[in-house]
């Protein structure tokens, strides 16, 4: 990995290297360098997000139409946008914060409706149908290129994993004489299989996260080594 050592980029690269080292200093424990780096990242991110919102959202949508089109740009949607933006801005003061509840309610409501609707139509129903379709040994997924034997094996694993995981998350049971939950031995065995599947899933996700972190660490180490070589003329 080569580093372009122009004047501006050199400063940026050195700052990046220092911040990387400051973050890595957390290996020694919580220290001032790590805290400075974290506060710097948070501050820069917030400032950048604010500036970006002002430049790419507020100015082009609330100010630029007036400057370019004049009063002809004032429409109902434009006025509603202005009112909602002003009300939302009033949340900065505690005495007028209640006025900002209306745009907040609108945002939360619309967002929740979209998320739930999208989850039902985009994930829940398609995935349930896909699970049922996947139990057909004769059907072969078009993109995986699996063979018939692999398909049967996948169907069995999918069936056992789905049922056992659902049984594991079954929290109802018959009440015993002392109030304890009584579950049949079959339910306990299937639940154990479900817990194995859940553990495997978590293990795979952890392995993926570890691989991603190692890739990032490798990139940072490569960056530091390349910077050191560039500074040292190697």
């Amino acid at each position, binding site marked *: 990995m080569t580093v372009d050592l122009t004047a501006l980029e050199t400063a940026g690269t050195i700052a990046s290297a220092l911040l990387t080292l400051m973050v890595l200093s957390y290996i020694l424990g919580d220290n001032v360098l790590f805290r400075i780096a974290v506060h710097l990242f948070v501050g820069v991110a917030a400032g950048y997000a604010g500036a970006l919102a002002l430049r790419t*959202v507020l100015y*082009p949508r609330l100010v630029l139409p007036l400057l370019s089109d004049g009063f002809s740009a004032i429409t109902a949607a434009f006025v509603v946008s202005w009112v909602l933006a002003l009300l939302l801005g009033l949340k900065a003061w505690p005495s007028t914060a209640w006025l900002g509840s209306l745009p907040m309610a609108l945002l939360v409501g619309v967002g929740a409706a979209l998320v739930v609707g999208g989850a039902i139509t*985009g*994930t829940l129903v398609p995935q349930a149908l896909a699970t049922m*379709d996947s139990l057909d040994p004769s059907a072969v997924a*078009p993109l995986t290129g699996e063979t018939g034997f692999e398909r049967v094996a996948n169907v069995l694993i999918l069936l056992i994993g789905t049922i056992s995981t659902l049984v594991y998350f079954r929290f109802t049971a018959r009440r015993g004489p002392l*109030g304890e939950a009584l579950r049949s031995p079959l339910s306990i065995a299937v639940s154990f299989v479900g817990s194995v599947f859940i553990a495997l899933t978590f293990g795979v996700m952890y392995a*993926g996260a570890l691989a991603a972190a190692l890739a990032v660490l*490798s*990139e940072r180490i490569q960056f530091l080594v390349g910077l050191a070589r560039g500074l040292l003329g190697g």
Partner: protein
Amino acid sequence: MTMADVRCPMCSTINPADATACSVCGARLKPMIAGEAESLAGPPEPQEGEAGDWLARIRSEVERKAETSGEAPPRPGEPEWLNRLRPASGEEEGPPEGELPEWLSEEEGSAAGPSEAAPGEVPDWLARIRERQKTELEAAAEEAPPPSADDDWLGRLRREEFLPTEPEAPLGEEPEREAPPLGPRPPSRPLPPSSPPAPAAAPPPISATAPPSGRIPPPSGEKPAVSQAPPFMGISKDLLEGAMPKWLEGAGPSSDEGLPHMPALVAEEGLAVTPESASDLQMGSIDIPNWLGDLRKDAGVAPPDAGAPGDSLARATLPAWLEAMRPMDTFRPVVEIQAEDAQEVESAGPLAGLRGVLLAEPVVAMPRQPSYSGARLEVTERQFALADLIHRMVEQEASEVGPKPPARRRLPFSRWAIAGALFLAVALPALLGAPSLSVPTLVPPGLPALITLVDSLPGDRPVLLVFDYEPAYAGELDAVAGPLLEDLMQRDIRLATVSTRPSGPPLAERLIRRIGDAHGYLNGQDYVHLGYLPGGPAAVQLFARDPRESLAGGFLLAQEPTRRGMWSTPVLAGVQQFSDFGAVVIIAAGTEIARTWVEQAGPWTGASPLVMVASAGIEPLIRPYYEALNPQVDAVLSGLPAAVAYEQANGRAGDARLLWDSFGTGMLVAEMALILGGMYGAASFLLRSGTGTSES
């Protein structure tokens, strides 16, 4: 009421003589057996032989007094005991009718205690009564017989009191006494009415003179026999010495004058027990049980409270064992017994005129707490345990938590060792170029489909790249997305970028510039940054519905960031809607944002493929969208190994290959650390289990 009428024994209602049941309460008026008629009329007379000598003496005394006082013979049809009681009220000579003295008429209204009257205001009828009383007292004093051995009970009582060393014979060992047969109890004497206002010329109190009842007091210096009057009868010392209680001082001697003396088996509170009455009782002849004898020993010097006669009575309390068995708070534990003066006179029934009668009906009707068995909680053992647990939890909430002791600072040697090993493993290939790991020979299952998909993309339609990851993941995702971008640029496919994160557009510019420089890609001609898409899922759906209306301005545009200017660039020429893009490539590091794009924008892609370039951590959650029979994701590129394989397929080594050696050695060290850690944990568990087993 005529003599033929019948009074109801239950409610005292007057009923006709021929009635068999009370017209009010329905109680039977005529007995079902012949013997009950007598019991209703009055207590039966004891049979001859059943009554002892004491009862015979009572009869003789009553008859003698009746003869001397000119008492009328008993009326036919009336019980004998009632005839004997009648002189108590009829013997008194009262004032003539209509000549009620003024002081009495005044006192009737106020119902106050006895008042002093002037001597000159005593009427003639009262003066006659007093004269006769005086005469009787004198005659009685002269006729008083010498105290017999049996009548000397008071003297013996005093001797026992003041000579405690004298052994007392148990009651059960007195053969010379004959216990009276248990028979009907003689009618108790009706209590005198409330003390009338005593005139000023009332005789001196009993404490100073002889008893006003005409009974002969024992001669001074001689004391009655103890056996005739047991100490538990509550005779006070003052009374034994001739003193009269204060409450009795107010009572005039005329109140008991002429009444037939009916000795009570139990001494009435506050009444003096004279030797005469004691001799009548013949208490010593009664076979008293041992427990009663013990009481007699203990009650020797306990004087009754003259001020409150009723207080000396034992309260009606339940014993402890019975109290424990009693239902909770259903009855009053103590029944208050009022003072004698405060007790009401029975006004109805066979006990009419008597004071101090146990009020059966008021006790029954006494308000009490309801005893609903259903109101009690039937708590099981488990419920009790849960309630106790909640109680302890609430108590713990209220308790103050002490300051936490400072944790002992320990140096994280294990963390340092693992970090050092990882750093060394990752840095060695970069510093020394060794070890060099071979590239993966196995191609990921979805990679050929992705390469085929990219090869089939139309060259006249731009590809939308969604840079939805944070800068922290740039090290991985830049290397993973690099081969795809390189492949697209090799085919001269125009690129448009967008991001729902503020840091997305700079990351896109950085990556495209780094890769596109080699392919001569220029901003505004070969690629364009649509910029930041604020609003989360709503903005994604809005952008998928109408891309031109959802974005206000681009990023790093060559001209003024206006909506028209951005969409008028040659890169976006021909793009009117979301499906006009040749493909949608989502580069995401999180599951949520990847799923948002699949859910919100997937239905609007049309025939355009949706490619997911994901971090290795979210690949398991993306796979279900890809491996379905009706896939929602058309291709997946995830992880550094897949990127290295893609680079090999492209025939050009990129960032993925540069990171491969460091990544490989780092993964090797991480896996070794995991294995060693697992072995250490298993060994610790086994050691703890063995220690616990040996201790148990």
